[in-house]
């Protein structure tokens, strides 16, 4: 029994007919062809599929597409600013070498966006706990923490921290 739903994906309304069991992540990737959101597990633990649903970060593998009916979905493809420049979180990840393979990156950035909206100046410990629902196998997290701090500073309009690697 298919159902028609309407979602607003990165500001554009989309009406699609879906099976009730369709996962939100598959709606985004397969039906709406936005493949920046990734799938890394089948138990809701890796966070690679994290998107914002009405501004709240969710694991889109754990939500049904029909539950998103009438809601706003934001994905990595919608991060760029209106003038085409990188969003603070994107710039932060690039400048701080907070990604290697890039697979966890979209989910990690979407999670960080919400984290910084709620807490514009988080401590290192708050960031580490805040992103602990998102796994990264490449970076060892040091630089992701740095990137979230950098993005926070940028969004607050504070002086940006150095992005040079620090060696002991």
């Amino acid at each position, binding site marked *: 029994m298919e159902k028609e739903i309407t979602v607003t994906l990165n500001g554009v309304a989309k009406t699609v007919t879906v099976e009730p069991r369709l996962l939100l992540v598959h709606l985004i990737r397969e039906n709406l062809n936005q493949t920046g959101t990734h799938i890394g597990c089948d138990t809701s633990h*890796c966070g690679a599929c994290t998107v914002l649903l009405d501004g709240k970060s969710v694991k889109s593998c754990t939500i049904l597409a029909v539950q998103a009916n009438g809601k706003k979905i934001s994905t990595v493809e919608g991060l760029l600013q209106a003038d085409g420049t990188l969003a603070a979180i994107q710039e932060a990840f690039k400048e701080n070498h907070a990604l290697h393979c890039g697979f966890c990156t979209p989910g990690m950035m979407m999670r960080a966006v919400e984290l910084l909206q709620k807490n514009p100046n988080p401590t290192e410990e708050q960031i580490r*706990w805040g992103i602990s629902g998102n796994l990264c196998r490449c*970076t060892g997290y040091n630089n992701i923490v740095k990137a979230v701090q950098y993005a926070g500073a940028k969004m607050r309009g504070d002086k940006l921290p150095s992005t040079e690697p620090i060696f002991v």
Partner: protein
Amino acid sequence: MIQECKTSKAISGMGHSMKRKEDGRFIQGKGNYVDDIKLDGMLYMDIYRSPYAYAKIKKINIDKAMKVPGVVAVITGKDLEKYNLHWMPTLMSDTQMVLPTDTVMYQAQEVAAVIATSRYAAADGVEAVEVEYEVMKPVMDPYKSTAPGAPVLRPDKKGKTDNKIWHWEVGDKQKTDKLFATAEVTVKEEIYVPRIHVASIETCGCVADYHKVNNHLTMYMTTQAPHAIRTVIALVAGHVGLTEEKIRVISPDIGGGFGGKVPVYPGYVIAIAVSFLVGKPVKWIEDRSENLQADSFARDYHITAEMAGTKAGKIQGIRFKVLADHGYTDASANPSKFPAGMFSICTGSYDYDTAFVEADAVYTNKPPGGVAYRCSFRVTEAVQGIERITDRFAQTIGMDPAAFRFKNFIKKEQFPWKSPTGWSYDSGDYELALKKAMDVIDYAGLRKEQIEKRKKGEIMGIGICSFTEVVGAGPSKDFDILGIKMFDSAEIRVHPTGKAIARFGTKSQGQGHETTYAQIIAEELGIPAENIQVEEGDTDTAPYGLGTYASRSTPTAGAAAAIAARKLRDKAKKIAAYLLEVSEADLEWEPGVFFVKGAPEKKKTIQEIVFASYTNHPQGMEAGFEATHYYDPPNLTFPFGSYICVVDIDKETCEIKVRRFVAIDDCGNIINPMIVQGQVHGGLTQGIAPAMYEELIYDDDGNILNGTFMDYLVPTAVESPSWETGHTITPSPHHPIGAKGVGESPTVGAPPAIANAIMDALSPYGITNIDIPITPYKVWKAMKEKGAVKGV
């Protein structure tokens, strides 16, 4: 600045922390991973897997599955058998079922493949496959695998009467046994390096796209070694007319590899077979559970480590014996002559001349493999063995582990150093690295603090690991995979306007090749790295190479890039001499410019020279500006480092907290410090993982007990400490740019440092060894046995 730069920031040659060129697409969601590929008419494949570890297949009923809406085919071993595609070779020249015809050999083994018009329909089809089994008692303990009465697991191998795969040994047994019989001090420890998983966040998968009209296969797949895979596909499928010129392997962006994307998995072969038979593209993407349960396991080495030496603290020799559990088949990806990989690096960073090392590999009913997980073929296992037994020896004679290491280090003037197992270490300064690590962490201060803490009954430990790695396989005289020599390649084409494209036989999975290779060429030619486009992973366009694993990209393809660029610089010099009407001997080079000695205003930039190579080249000279090099390394490279870890253990809960971790690495000359540091951070987190969290656990019936991310504990940002990293720089004397490779050092060096710290913390209680992963429960249990904690 960690390393002097010879080029300007505008050129960004070696030593510049250039921001990565590849990041733009990843931060905008425009990476192109295999599951992002969508082709017209594409079918989806899902795999039905065995719930049992060892069972006869009595019957497979596909009728219900075929009735599921959207299902177009269900493929079993019997179907593949008709085309002789039901078996395939492993990279170790062992054999592996693609799909079984009669017996399943491990839980989660592929039994049938369902092909459907959608992902969901394929999954529905899998649910509807019905298989009747006759369940048998599996062999899960490798020690029991070779015991009398154990079932012969591989009757498919003619004449096989036991479960032994191979025996390998190196060193002088007689001399070693004699030493151990007479030495003042010998210590022995059983050290298990557990079965773990690479767990890259992207699983494995492919899209097989066969076109009947052209008899051509394009295989998009998550592979770290696209060229070698093309050859393997040709070897497996050549008999059905799919010969190598008809195969194109494209390895798109890869979401982490770590060695797990080197082997050929059955799913790839089934997808090819189905696409071949139905003439449509077929996509197969593993679930995480399938990935953890069936593919890419690493380690699983049972090491008996022994060290002999004097009471005064001089190491005289080691004797290591290994039992390697390979599961159902040896599906490692080691060089052919090295079935135990480079395990013989287990003599470590110390100066002695006596060693005997042996390993026996056996079959069990576990998933196949033994992949080199972020490790140059069993180096992690070797370093765990030597660095743990080194600490045990120091502890036994009552010597500080740092002082013990200083007393035994190979000195920097002893390089090149011939190891008792036959390696020729290229360069090193082990004392400097350990000294630096001790200074940074204040080792003396920590020891004082530890004495105070112990008086108060608090538990704190300090652990050292001074590892030597062996990477960059390898010289063609010794190193091959399936007979293909382990060279690697670079091809540079500079366009008339002075911008370049460079292609390689390797394949980045996050290492940043698009940036670092460009920097190597920028260093050599003075063309800005920004203007050098790097491409890998398409066998139709890139030169042949053996791929990226075992920290080999910089030692092999990086060297090829430098040498190809030098060939071009030689050509540039000829053109510059022609244009400036001087002899070549009158020219001097600075990055990007040839100028006349004593008259620097008379010069030609590399861009002018390249343009002339297309528009005004000397008569008789070949036009254009292109070079290719296949680099055959004269030796391996030997990165090293010293890591120090400080742990605090809660005496009630036995919770272990890594307070500080300092990693001093020496990977020779550094191409991009930012990327090197990133590699070290990541490798360290993959080092704390098996040290404290990760292990694939099976019960006696062959069931995996933690086959999902719910219970296989990949460290999050909370478990991962804030790493402190630094370097010493000891260039490789034989590598064209003096680099050694770095990606794997931290994964290799971290587990023993952490284990040594925890065991140092527990030493007052008489606890000498706990196998990794060292969990609070294991610590609590060991403490309880010693009467050091209360509890039920």
